[in-house]
């Protein structure tokens, strides 16, 4: 199969630019996850790939062939809709085989595909029901099934698992991933659940306000977010981000800090060095911080709230007006207790005043 390429794709709704100059390539054997907050243009992008929405500028191509002008029915793309879009009058089985009519399969092959999809998605028991007799989760699985029963040029999934409960979701994630691996088609999955994005995507594209902020492997995006938006968006619990300034440089490295703390960070930590006085943001993940010692210390963090998250606790501190989060397995202090939060230097992300990454990628987290 051939790859899917978006070149400078934009979408204008009246005066509102929902998607702006997106460039993306998805290889035939690749799953790309589109991740981003609500309203950032994920669905719109998907619809443009499917041919349900015309592109205002730019082009959508499969294997180098520009299909921008082709209507949806001629693109041979499979799509699972955010709100399922099941055919209300057809049974689950009929819904599932509906798209096969256009593929002209013989009855045996059709049955084989149906059986396979039904078993993978655990829909065997509800094949004769109609959509309104299904639970939300079942509906969603039918929508996914209607997609993966096909052998299209590309797969598009719009929030395919959002309505499933945790156990089922974990299960489905694996199943879908395995099926996609055998089919070898470029796949785009939209989600706003980052765990899903991280686990299902070969690469992740993080979107904001119609544009792409960063594309990369899940690990890459998690470990080295390109900017503060990505840093704050990826990772649960959220990364702690603190405002600070560059206080200058000395032999040991660059001195950064706030009114209440100053740390020296080796030059090697930066791929671009800030100048003295520059506003900075520095961040670290709650899991990388601890109440034990650490190279970088934040003194006088006052515990505001401690949340139990099963095996771990998420501690919310107030550090001179800035929120600091720490994830720990050890016992939580009393509320209002003051503590020193220590952060490992290697876990420190530094961004410039515009939120762009300053620290190098090489430092393992």
């Amino acid at each position, binding site marked *: 199969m051939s790859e899917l390429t978006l070149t400078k794709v934009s979408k204008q709704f009246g005066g509102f630019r929902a998607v702006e100059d997106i460039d993306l390539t998805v290889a035939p054997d690749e799953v790309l996850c589109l991740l981003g907050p609500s309203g950032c243009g994920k669905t719109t992008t998907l619809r443009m790939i499917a*041919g349900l929405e*015309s592109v205002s500028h730019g082009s959508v191509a499969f294997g180098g062939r520009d299909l*921008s*002008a082709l*209507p949806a029915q001629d693109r041979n793309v499979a799509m699972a809709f955010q709100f399922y879009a099941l055919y209300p009058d057809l049974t689950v089985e009929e819904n599932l085989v509906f798209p096969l009519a256009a593929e002209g399969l013989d009855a045996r092959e059709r049955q084989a595909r149906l059986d396979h999809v039904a078993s993978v998605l655990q829909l065997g028991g509800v094949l004769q029901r109609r959509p309104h007799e299904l639970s939300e989760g079942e509906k969603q699985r039918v929508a996914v099934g209607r997609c993966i029963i096909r052998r299209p040029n590309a797969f598009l999934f719009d929030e395919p698992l959002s309505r499933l409960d945790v156990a089922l979701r974990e299960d489905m994630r694996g199943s879908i991933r395995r099926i996609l691996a055998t089919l070898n088609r470029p796949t785009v999955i939209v989600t706003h659940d980052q765990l899903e994005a991280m686990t299902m995507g070969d690469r992740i594209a993080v979107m904001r306000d119609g544009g792409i902020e960063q594309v990369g492997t899940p690990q890459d995006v998690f470990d080295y977010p390109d900017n503060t938006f990505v840093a704050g968006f990826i990772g649960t619990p959220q990364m702690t981000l603190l405002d600070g300034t560059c206080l200058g440089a000395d032999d040991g490295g660059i001195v950064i800090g706030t009114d209440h703390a100053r740390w020296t960070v080796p030059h090697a930590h930066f791929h671009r060095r800030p100048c003295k006085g520059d506003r900075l943001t520095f961040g670290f993940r709650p899991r990388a911080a601890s109440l034990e010692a650490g190279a970088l210390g934040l003194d006088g963090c006052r515990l505001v709230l401690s949340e139990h998250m099963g095996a771990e606790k998420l501690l919310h501190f107030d550090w001179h007006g800035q929120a600091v989060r720490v994830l720990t397995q050890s016992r939580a202090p009393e509320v209002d207790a003051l503590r020193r939060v220590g952060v490992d230097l290697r876990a420190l992300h530094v961004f410039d005043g515009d939120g762009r990454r300053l620290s190098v990628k090489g430092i393992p987290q």
Partner: protein
Amino acid sequence: MSFRKHNEGGWGQTLVSGLVAVIYFAPVFWMILTAFKTRQDALAIPPKLIFTPTLENFRSVFVEVTSSGEVVSTGAWLYFANSAFIAGASVLLALIIGTLAAYAFSRYPLKGNDTYLFIILTTRMLPPIVVIIPIFLLFRITGLSGTYIGIILLYTSFNLPFSIWMMKSFFDDLDREVEDSARMDGSSDWAVFGRIVLPQVLAGLAATLVFALILTWNEFIFALLLTGPETRTVPVAIASTIGGSIGVDWGKLSAMITLFLIPVFIVTFALQNQLLRGVTFGTIRK
């Protein structure tokens, strides 16, 4: 744009639909045109599309010349006023009573709910002509014949089944949690109905109103039998233009039809959006 959303057509669609609409509207157009024609033009074949329009027909609706040459009012304005008052009052009444009942049927189901609803519908099933005598009798006994109250009551009861069925389906479709929520917030049941429920079914009310209005506005048989000279409505007056010494007085007839069409047309046009939305909303889950 290289392709359109499914639900949008362009001027091409306008052209096709326009053609169909114009053909469909042609008979009405003809009626209206006739209102501006002299009698000879009205019946001319081949039909005259180009003619000298006259307003004489409209004049004749409102004034006439008596045997002694005096110009007097025909009293038609009274019929129009009657029509407006009677239709308005009975539709409103039916809407109010029907809405309350529909709400009750929807929210406080009685035992045998369906049976009640069915019986209510049944009252609409008989050809009016066969229930005339008993109704007439009843009106005579109660002294309602020829009174506004009588005819309004009658029309109200005609519109009730429709209002109840229609409005019930609207109420059925409402999200009950909203009402629960208001109740939790300390509102009395009446406040819930007035402040929360009614605003949500405005569209349905509009749709019901239009349908009921159309039916009431044009009702003839009972208007003929149960109104007196003072309470007579326009449809009866329209019928009076038929069968005089000149058979059908085409010009006057058309003029009355035209004048009589205008109010419902305006109401329908004004409520058009709600009408579509209302009908959708009310019946989609049936």
